[in-house]
């Protein structure tokens, strides 16, 4: 048995221990959906960080910076700054007015059935796409990292899917939270050690390190070139580059604050003050992590070289390859395990937010108009939904195969969150006049426009040279109709505009009357659960 596998099994065993412990303590809906609202500020800070820092962050970003230098680092910046929006705008009102889901906040003063149905639809779409992206990534990782253990892509996808179903179905939010806390600790420690190893290579002399990063030799179209990786322009080039970058920034600034699996974390703490402190904890962790990704990415570019990374396992493998180059097999095993832990923690978070929204928003509140026909029904429905969503994700991830383009799926989730969820959520909290028609218009148009523009954009459409296969091949072989990779610059304003227009075209007295109640509850937490 390889070291990688041994370290990985140790992690799995401890998370199953956590799940068993959580299952013993989990009684009732609030325990299952919101960890009994007993999570402390630092714990939730770690859990949010563990929920948010996905495989795309840990593996994808290091590779992106190793290939695109500064342009890749702009992704890291976006991932962090999003939490300023969460801190100032979303976390506390959400905690004070909702119970388990984003739909709770919307349904507060709007007509509950249509807005909950759409909120559940949008949550399920975002979570499922994200989850599939993570699982494809997990499968691809296993085939590369554990190549000697004989585990195939399909087995890896089923394994990851089965584990996350066990955490979520038996352990609920409490187990998910602790898996995320453990993962955040492992990831932070691992990133710190790796960063110190990179810097040690340059005798802890930062000027020397950055001097090396300013002269990276790589090949472009067969020609060797020397690039300064601290200068912009390696990825975002004229004519569309700058607009694409602004578009990406828009998605980051608002998208994270609309991601259902992040929002649900704020229901696990006792009150708004704890929620606020937990965001600050998360910002410390996530920020220092993303700052370190720049050292790791540039380190990989300098020590391994972009050419070597592309030919030996691709961008996603830059981090593990760097670990191997700096500290050998044992550290590679540890880094690989942390990468799995990362994926498991994120998919569990996605899974619980999707199943909670289905059970609480759709089943209990839309179909049965807010009445639980028997005690424990919503938890039971959530467990069945988790089973179904998990099974569907496993099947889709297997059908797509390891070569599929994970980035499209993940980008899609973030763009929907920014264009559909965030406008509806923000307007519902801050605009007295906002009403059901506005929420329905904003959610629907934000979701549809994102789908249409991503499909019509250069992520999906493009003419490939003959011989392009797998992830490199575009799904539709035609010139893209929409020029930007990132659709936010159109879809975010469109989501807001639709929500505002929909509101102005109709009048809803009830929604305006109840705004006082929402405002009071959101700001002083009166009557919060």
């Amino acid at each position, binding site marked *: 048995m390889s070291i990688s596998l041994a370290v990985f099994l140790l992690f799995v065993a401890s998370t199953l221990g956590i799940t068993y412990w959580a299952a013993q303590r989990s009684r009732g809906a609030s325990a299952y959906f919101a960890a009994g609202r007993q999570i402390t500020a630092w714990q939730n800070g770690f859990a949010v960080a563990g929920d948010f820092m996905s495989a795309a962050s840990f593996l994808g970003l290091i590779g992106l910076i190793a290939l695109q230098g500064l342009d890749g680092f702009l992704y890291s910046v976006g991932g962090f700054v999003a939490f300023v929006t969460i801190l100032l705008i979303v976390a506390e009102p959400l905690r004070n007015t909702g119970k388990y889901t984003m739909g709770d906040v919307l349904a507060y003063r709007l007509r509950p059935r249509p807005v909950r149905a759409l909120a559940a639809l949008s949550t399920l779409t975002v979570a499922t796409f994200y989850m599939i992206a993570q699982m494809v990534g997990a499968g691809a990782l296993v085939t590369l990292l554990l190549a000697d253990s004989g585990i195939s892509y399909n087995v890896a996808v089923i394994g990851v899917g089965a584990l996350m179903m066990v955490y979520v179905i038996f352990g609920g939010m409490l187990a998910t939270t602790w898996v995320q806390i453990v993962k955040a600790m492992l990831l932070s420690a691992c990133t710190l050690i790796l960063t110190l190893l990179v810097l040690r290579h340059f005798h802890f002399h930062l*000027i020397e390190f950055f001097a090396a990063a300013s002269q990276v030799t790589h090949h472009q179209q067969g020609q060797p070139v020397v690039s300064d990786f*601290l*200068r912009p322009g390696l990825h975002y080039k004229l004519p569309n580059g700058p607009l694409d*970058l*602004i578009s990406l*920034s828009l998605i980051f600034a608002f998208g994270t604050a609309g991601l259902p699996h992040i929002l649900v974390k704020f229901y696990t703490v006792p009150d708004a003050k704890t929620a606020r402190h937990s965001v600050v904890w998360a910002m410390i962790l996530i920020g220092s992590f993303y700052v370190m990704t*720049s050292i790791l990415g540039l380190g990989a570019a300098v020590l391994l070289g972009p050419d070597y990374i592309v030919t030996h396992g691709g961008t996603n493998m830059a981090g593990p390859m760097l670990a191997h180059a700096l500290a050998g097999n044992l550290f590679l095993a540890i880094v690989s395990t942390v990468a799995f832990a990362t994926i498991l923690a994120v998919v569990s978070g996605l899974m619980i937010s999707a199943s909670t929204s289905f059970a609480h928003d759709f089943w209990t509140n839309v179909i049965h108009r807010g009445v639980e026909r028997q005690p424990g029904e919503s938890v039971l429905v959530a467990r069945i939904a988790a089973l179904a969503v998990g099974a569907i994700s496993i099947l889709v991830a297997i059908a797509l195969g390891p070569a599929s383009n994970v980035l499209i799926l993940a980008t899609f989730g973030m763009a929907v969150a920014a264009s559909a969820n965030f406008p509806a959520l923000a307007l519902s909290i801050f605009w007295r006049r906002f009403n059901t028609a506005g929420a329905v218009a904003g959610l629907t148009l934000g979701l549809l426009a994102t789908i249409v523009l991503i499909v019509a954009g250069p992520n999906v459409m493009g003419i490939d040279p003959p011989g392009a296969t797998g992830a490199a091949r575009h799904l539709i072989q035609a010139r893209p109709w929409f020029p930007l990779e990132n659709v936010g610059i159109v879809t975010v304003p469109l989501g807001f505009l639709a929500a505002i227009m929909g509101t102005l075209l109709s009048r809803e007295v009830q929604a305006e*009357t109840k705004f*006082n109640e929402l405002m009071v509850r959101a700001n002083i937490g*009166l009557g919060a659960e």
Partner: protein
Amino acid sequence: MNNKAEDVPPQPSDQNQWDSIAGSEQFKDLLQIKRLFIVPAFVFFLVYYFALAVLVGYAPKLASTRVIGTVTVAYLFALSQFVVGWIIAGLYLLASARFDALTKDILARVAVHKVAYQDERQGDK
């Protein structure tokens, strides 16, 4: 600290109760003080963050200027986003001590009024 005042939750049907809290001077003060911090902080954050994309996208020459050794304006500006984020978070925590104190006062007043309000209603019967 517990802000929930679970012992006296107002009934959802008590629209008057919500309106009277929303209309009270104390509550308006709280909103005003919150707004005074949150709006400028959020606007500053957005401007500062989008300035990075605009600088890198539209002024690549300026962004490529080396400041310390080979470290560029763009890299330092990107790093400063983290520092600015942390500073905003720190200032918000400081400012929120005031919000919490005001919130506590309002909740205490609501609890007193709630009792008086119920007495009044019982008196009507």
